[in-house]
């Protein structure tokens, strides 16, 4: 097998949103620690899944990578260039290689633009295709995502949720990107339609050689589509591993609880399962717990968890976990 090539390297990424008080003289009184020091690599051609509960910072991570939010500190190196240092024209050019598919197919398409204009806009901005060539390219893209090329003159409201999400995919593909950040692309869709969109994303990956960062909260779907999976909790990555390893051998108490909470579509399995029920809610990211972030809900928490922040260490090959203990090793 060939050596895996790093396409994107995220290092010590922080994103804090300031909380301000006052109208005329506003001063910062605190910060939402949305992303609080995360590091990972994305290899060429793989799908990295990013899971966690709402408010854990997974979408912020995706947007900060694309520089839609400028990070507070840290670096995002894409093919040798640090995106956080790029500005203006240079950044705009780089964006061609990094695209995004959004969660809500009803809100992410402009209702006043035709499908052709929506998919054509990135080409217009970057000047890649013009005039008749652009029209042809739009039709090709529509066919690529499984829609009729003649739909280019229609408006978004004429399509169903699943079809709209296909239009969103076509728009993301318009500039032939290398990395696509999929921000919960299927959570607004019906179950049978989810499978259609997931199959489409898989087909496109194998024909176009795309790399995905797949953000989701549905653990069974993430397992299906990803090669490796990162689990986020309150702004940090608590565990990162190969998908089979993570599901077979979760080492962080939070990953364990998260996996045990997923319902199986099988009454025979459900009958025998024992759930780990997490008490309470996720703490506020304005004042995250000192030490280990998860200790307030962790059944194994000891004194050290409140004092020291656990290191993100490699517990076995390519399996990283941020926990003081090694609770689940057999």
């Amino acid at each position: 097998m060939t050596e895996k090539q790093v396409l994107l390297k995220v290092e010590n990424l922080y994103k804090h949103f300031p909380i301000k008080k006052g109208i005329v003289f506003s001063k910062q009184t605190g910060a939402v620690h949305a992303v609080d020091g995360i590091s990972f690599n994305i290899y060429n051609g793989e799908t990295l899944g990013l899971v966690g509960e709402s408010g854990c910072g997974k979408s912020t991570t995706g947007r900060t990578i694309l520089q839609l939010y400028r990070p507070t500190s840290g670096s995002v190196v894409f093919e040798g260039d640090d995106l956080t240092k790029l500005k203006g024209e240079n950044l705009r050019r780089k964006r061609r290689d990094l695209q995004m598919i959004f969660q809500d197919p009803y809100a992410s398409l402009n209702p006043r633009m035709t499908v052709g204009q929506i998919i054509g806009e990135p080409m217009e901005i970057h000047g890649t295709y013009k005039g008749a060539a652009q029209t042809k390219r739009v039709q090709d893209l529509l066919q690529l995502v499984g829609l009729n090329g003649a739909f280019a003159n229609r408006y978004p409201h004429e399509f169903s949720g699943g079809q709209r999400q296909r239009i969103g995919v076509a728009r993301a593909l318009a500039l032939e990107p290398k990395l696509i950040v999929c921000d919960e692309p299927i959570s607004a869709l019906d179950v049978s339609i989810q499978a259609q969109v997931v199959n489409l994303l898989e087909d496109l990956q194998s024909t176009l050689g795309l790399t995905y960062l797949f953000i989701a909260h549905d653990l069974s779907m993430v397992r299906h589509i990803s090669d490796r999976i990162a689990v986020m909790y309150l702004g940090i990555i608590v565990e990162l591993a190969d998908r089979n390893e993570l599901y077979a051998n979760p080492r962080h108490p939070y990953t364990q609880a998260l996996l045990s909470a997923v319902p199986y579509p099988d009454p025979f399995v459900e009958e025998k399962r024992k759930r780990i029920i997490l008490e309470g809610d996720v703490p506020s990211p304005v004042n995250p717990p000192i030490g280990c972030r998860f200790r307030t809900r962790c059944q194994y928490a000891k004194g050290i968890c409140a004092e020291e922040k656990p290191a993100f260490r490699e517990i076995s090959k390519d399996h990283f976990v941020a926990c003081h203990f090694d609770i689940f090793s057999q």
Partner: protein
Amino acid sequence: MAELLKVEGLETHFQTREGVIHAVNGVSFNLKEGETLGIVGESGCGKSVSMMSMLRLIPSPPGKVVAGKALFEGNDLLTINDEQIRNIRGAKISVVFQDPMTSFNPVLTIGDQVAEPYRVHHKAGKKEALDRAVKYLELVGIPNARERLSDYPHQFSGGMRQRAMIAMGLICEPQILIADEPTTALDVTIQAQIIELVKRLRDELGMAIIWITHDLGIIAGLADRVNVMYGGYIIETAPVKDIYKNPQHPYTIGLLGSLPRMDETGYRRLTSIDGLPPILLEKPATCPFELRCRYAKERCRKENPGLMQVEGDGHFTACWVNPKTGKEY
């Protein structure tokens, strides 16, 4: 066990600018005491509308229940007068709605809202009702329930709001609790909390539950019996184990195949159901699923199959074709 609710031939129409939408096209089912019934289907298949029709909660116009009966304690819920239905709703049959963010009134306190059904149905005073609200908020696991009575909904998190909704549904100790996708808007960890809670309460209070969902995963461990709906019809009904082990309708098979499973080893391509659910501008004369069905035969394009018993006790399916053999029965 005794039958608690018997719904027969329920039909609901909505008047729209495009024409009459036939949302529910003859739904019949029974609910026994203490039974948990799961109702599954995609959005727009009529699962919520059929339950709301039964309780006369359909806004009219544009909605109208045009046919059917819903027998509860010897009375037809669809024909009794307004006061009688009000005495049943919230007291004997209560509903927990989908979205905990919007189903509370933001300008009233949690305590007042949770206590309201008890005050109305039992003519109780404010203090007595609030005491009872505390009891039920504690039952659903709200810490410091008494102090939190004077909180407003925005001070509760999503999971807590949903638990408060359930407390409101339970405060009159109903015989039937209808849960309309109560966990769809919540995270999996909170969803697991709510499901465990409902299971515990069901066993403690002995009520019957109708759980509406689009996710076959959720009800596998919860329901005794499952109704699968499509195009305003129940297209398959069976005890929970039969429906997962031995699904008979192509739509149910498709739904199960489109779910990835976490215990699968290796890679399996998801089977998607091509196409879209029908827009029911007229009552389907053919099988409503025929256009998306892999097994469709000549007969499916001519006649709409009714529910027919197949192998297994209490297992009914509305399909002309046996999916195992690909031939007509």
